[in-house]
């Protein structure tokens, strides 16, 4: 073979030549009954155990939920809860009892859950100034924080509706007359504490106006240490959400009764919101959520059902693989 020919044949092996001549090898899988049934069986056999494992993890999470916003309002004021909550002269103490049904291993997370609270409303989400949170009063362009930007001409730090509506209910936990120690540090994201909230930024002229939207902040503590504020500023994506309040570092046994002394300060009555207190352990999967387990089991079961159905159909209507009499131009002569 002469050299030019060899050159030509070598070119014919290159990927570019194959690509332009449309001769690249292609995989054209054919769905034979055997393959289909096998694949569905495998899917069923994989998804069902995974679903069961996830369900088990989700069931192993112990969760106590207690809605307190209706019952913490005394009977006499229940008709007009809004004026009750806005009246500063009435003390807002409340005592609730929570019974532990199952053994809860430390650390136990304490969450407050708000329902029908649209933290994902667009104007609400935009009403903050991240630069000001990092740099403080030195940063002047806080127009995105309107209308909670200035107070009597003085800039508000931190500005914006999100900070203004800070959640300010507080909880203390007592078990058998001894107070449970609640760890309120390290509840915010580390990246938020280090990089989004300034270490030298102090609250200034915060919640000083006539309209009180939520809690107040200590002016002496810098923003990077105000973990409640940091947790609150991480706006949630859905209208019903939980935010971490603190952690209990002790185990709770079965039939323990926890007495919760809470201050019912936050006004969710104007818009029909709900407040709940949640004590929850966590597992390798996270909190209590059965959705993943149920979804996996449903998928696995339906795959198994399909595998069985296809097996039965295949056994009933058996025909050899590659039977050309079923090609459309042959079938017409079959059916006449």
């Amino acid at each position, binding site marked *: 073979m002469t050299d030019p020919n060899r050159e030509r044949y070598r070119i014919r092996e290159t990927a570019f030549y194959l690509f332009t001549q*449309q001769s690249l090898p292609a995989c054209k899988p054919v769905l034979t009954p055997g393959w289909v049934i096998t694949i569905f069986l495998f899917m069923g056999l994989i998804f069902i155990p995974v679903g069961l494992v996830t369900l088990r993890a989700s069931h192993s999470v112990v969760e106590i939920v207690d809605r307190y916003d209706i019952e913490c309002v005394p009977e006499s004021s229940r008709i007009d809860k809004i004026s009750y909550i806005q009246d500063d002269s009435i003390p807002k103490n409340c005592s609730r009892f929570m019974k532990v049904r199952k053994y809860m291993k430390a650390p136990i997370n304490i969450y407050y859950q708000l329902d*029908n609270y649209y933290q994902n409303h*667009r104007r609400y989400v935009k009403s903050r100034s991240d630069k000001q949170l990092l740099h403080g009063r030195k940063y002047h362009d806080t127009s995105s924080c309107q209308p909670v930007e200035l107070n009597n001409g003085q800039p508000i730090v931190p500005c914006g509706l999100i900070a203004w509506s800070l959640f300010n209910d507080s909880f203390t936990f007592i078990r058998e007359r001894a107070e449970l120690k609640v760890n309120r540090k390290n509840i915010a994201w580390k990246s938020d504490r280090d990089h989004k909230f300034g270490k030298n930024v102090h609250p200034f002229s915060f919640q000083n106006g006539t309209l009180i939207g939520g809690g107040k902040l200590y002016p002496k503590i810098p923003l990077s240490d105000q973990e409640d504020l940091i947790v609150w500023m991480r706006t949630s994506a859905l209208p019903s959400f939980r935010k971490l309040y603190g952690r209990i570092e002790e185990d709770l046994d079965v039939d323990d009764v926890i007495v919760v002394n809470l201050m019912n300060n936050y006004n969710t009555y104007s818009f*029909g*919101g709900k407040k709940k207190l949640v004590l929850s352990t966590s597992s390798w999967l996270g909190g209590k959520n059965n959705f993943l387990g149920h979804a996996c089991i449903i998928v696995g079961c339906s795959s198994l059902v399909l595998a069985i159905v296809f097996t039965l159909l295949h056994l009933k209507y058996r025909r050899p693989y590659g039977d050309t009499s079923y090609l459309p131009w042959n079938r017409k002569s079959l059916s006449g």
Partner: protein
Amino acid sequence: MSVILGLPNKSVKVFVKGADTTMFGVTDRSLNTSIIRATEAHLHSYSSIGLRTLVIGMRELSTSEFEEWHSAFEVASNALMGRARLLRKVATNIESNLRILGASGIEDKLQEGVPEAIESLRTAGIKVWVLTGDKQETAISIGYSSKLLTSKMTQIIVNRNSKESCRKSLEDAIIMSKKLTTMSGNTNDTGRTLGASLTPVALIIDGTSLVYILDCELEEMLFELACNCSVVLCCRVAPLQKAGIVALVKKRTSDMTLAIGDGANDVSMIQMADVGVGISGQEGRQAVMASDFAMGQFRFLVTLLLVHGHWNYQRMGYMILYNFYKNAVFVLVLFWYVLFTCFTLSTAINEWSSVLYSVIYTSVPTIVVGILDKDLNRRTLLKYPQLAIFQIARTGLFWLCLLSIIVAALIPRFVVKVLYQFYTPCDVQIAREAEKFQPRSESAAVEVEMNPILNQPRP
């Protein structure tokens, strides 16, 4: 076509070549009738074996005739207006009273692989019509040798000289073709192709008849007749008539027409069809320059249509549906999230991600599928041309299926979310209700949201 020669012995002769019908029209009949008859017989036998025939004639010109012609020719070739007509008149004057010298027959060999190619195309359900400038017998014999015509076929020949006789001939032909195609018992109406394939009918039509048929109401009859036949063979077709036939089919059906040719006389046909293919060969590159696709041999048309055509069609359909699906997914995610944000404009997907969604995130699979997807092997497609039939109806069903999947997957969520909406109305609705019942100061907090940004909060 003629040439005037001056010979060394000072005599002037004009030599003319042309097709037999035109040549016999200008010969001097009185001279040699026996020669003419013998030539006609020879021509007939040549064309029966598939040779392309020409007749050559000659006349001696006297000096005065030559001078006359020469001056007329000069005048005509320098004329500013109507030059072509004048030149033709001069030529017609000189080409008369010729003496037949003889006839020639040339074998125009079929290219390699042409019969198989035509058979593959016919099996795939593509109707093949042949338009040629040759005589009828030549065309028929070439049809047999290229397997366009088979001995099983019934031939209907339309070869008339006037409009009325053309009309009558077409009517008879339609009746006969209907009788032949329905006689096989196949009376389905899902297309004329099926009816014709069992008792095939071949239509052979002459260029002289086409003169009377094209561009008038007989076109409709011709179309109807041609659709009942499985093969149409047109002989003695002029280049413009070729284009006329293609236009006839194109205007009346939504089927795609493809014209393939190799000479300059095919250019108008190639440009008239939906797809024009030029074969670069002996007759120059005119056809190639006017075409959409150019190839070296006729048999490559099979690969083009059955393999690449099928792959392209399937890939395009797949890609279009893929595009709809991906856009639907994107939009529907945003849509469902809106129900949770109380219909404000918070987006579930970042703005930059939205912009880059089609550009980066979902572009590569679409492109890769659109370029490389092969549902059938090249060999399979060539071996079973019927598979290459483009299934348009199936694609419609596929689209419907996709739509129904999207709708069905989302209805339950929609229902749940609507219920949720009614059960716990969002704060704007509540606040609006609350405004009616409560003093304004308490709902001022919500009013802050609803008023324009520049207002101060009301005390």
